[in-house]
């Protein structure tokens, strides 16, 4: 699957793809960042729990040889939440880790994303976080690139 967290949601994207990217970005954000995003978009963080935030497991699958049959590599902790806004919009979140407050905020964000009028402001606020993450990723890539080996061929022989 193309990495959903690499680029921020853009206004012209089809609805589902844009929502998935927004969810991925919310998943990469801290709880404080999510509160900021909601505040910046003027979205109230009040919502009713459809499913109280809950921590569980997912089985992480790999493939034999990297591209073959699937096998179970080991589990990971995941926290999920589902909320409903007063207007009836329903939002979900599934994140690695055990941060229930963060999952609930992300679900609220996803619910607000269902309101077309809230989307541009949410997308703009998420794009800021996306920019910060992209900078960090770029710096990590630059540090890795500095450890790339350059080979020299040593000529030996009679002439």
């Amino acid at each position, binding site marked *: 699957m193309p990495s959903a967290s690499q680029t921020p949601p853009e206004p012209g994207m089809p609805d589902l793809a844009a929502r998935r990217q927004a969810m*991925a970005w919310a998943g990469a954000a801290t709880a404080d960042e999510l509160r900021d995003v909601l505040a910046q978009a003027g979205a109230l963080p009040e919502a009713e729990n459809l499913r109280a935030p809950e921590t569980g497991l*997912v089985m992480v699958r790999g493939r034999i*040889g990297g591209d073959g*049959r699937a*096998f*179970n590599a080991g589990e990971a902790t995941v926290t999920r939440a589902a909320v409903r806004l007063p207007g009836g919009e329903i939002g979900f979140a599934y994140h690695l880790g055990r941060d229930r407050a963060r999952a609930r905020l992300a679900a609220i964000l996803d619910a607000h994303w269902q309101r077309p009028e809230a989307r541009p402001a949410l997308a703009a606020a998420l794009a800021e976080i996306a920019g910060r993450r992209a900078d960090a990723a770029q710096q990590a890539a*630059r540090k*890795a690139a500095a*450890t790339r080996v350059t080979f020299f061929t040593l000529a030996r022989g009679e002439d």
Partner: protein
Amino acid sequence: MYVAVKGGEAAIDNAHRLLAEVRRGDPAVPELTVAQIREQMRLLVDRVMTEGSLYDPDLAALALKQARGDVVEAVFLVRAYRTTLPRFGATEPVDTGAMTLARRISATFKDLPGGQVLGPTFDYTHRLVDFGLADAGSPDPAAEAEPEADAAACPRVTDLLGQAGLLEPSPPDEGAPVGDLTREPVDYPADRAVRLQGLARGDEGFLLALGYSTQRGYGRTHPFVGEIRVGAVELAFTPEELGFPVSLGTVALTECQMINQFHGHGAVPPQFTRGYGLVFGQGERKAMAMALVDRSLRAAELGEPVAVPAQDQEFVLAHCDSLQATGFVEHMKLPHYVDFQAELELVRRLRAEHAARAAAPAPASDESPLREAAE
């Protein structure tokens, strides 16, 4: 008759209070935080995640703090924790070809797309103790360079070699159910997917020794490191209520592709065969050992004799789990007073009979003497 013995409650409570105090160490020394363990003992955290079979760096760091740094005890805590949680499902299989690479090396191909990226490695260090680390200080910032154009598309080495038919392809995914040894007991012979699950959570020391044994001649497999890659992959999961995959976030993984000389058999032409290792975090030694043992355990499938421990599925899979092993070994220190009392009675009786036989006159006989071992 079963005799229950009670007692020791106060001693046990006080032992645990003493443990808590000793765990803390000298109160004049600042207490370790979980974040410090997670950031600065990262390879240890990665090992606990891998052998605990649960990706959660903060949980593994906390378990290490509680276990006073005892890896197997920390694995025990992590495994116990996971039994308290419901399982939401399984992720899409990770695509290691799309990994954001922190490190990627091949010992078989010098020039390959994406290059050899050393990343943060102990390789090529001099292994001299750095006494400077005894004092607090900040390291020099890491060097930076412009990533080359081919760095983004970094195919697995096995994908390149496989195209020429020199390398056996991975077993194709035909959508069969994926065996899970945490849900069903292992039946032998075990399917390769189940074996890999067992090896992934197996004890690093045990698998390292077994892998080493194959190199020393106990079931040679002529291995080369086709590729080791370390980095982050995104996990995709499809919740039932949504019906489309969501990104759960990224996990760090280490993958090892071992490629092994193979002479072919029957209808199979000579080609390179493969062993595979995949672990949480940065765990190259474990991933390599896993790949070596994965290949060894394919002996029967590849028409090789099954003669040594590393080729014996049951020997490897039934003994590689540190938690199972420590459970059975360490339970022996718990009270066995009644069992031992029975053994004591038996030995006393046998000794009395032995003494009685020794005192009796030797029977006249031409039987050959019983053979005895040297000790």
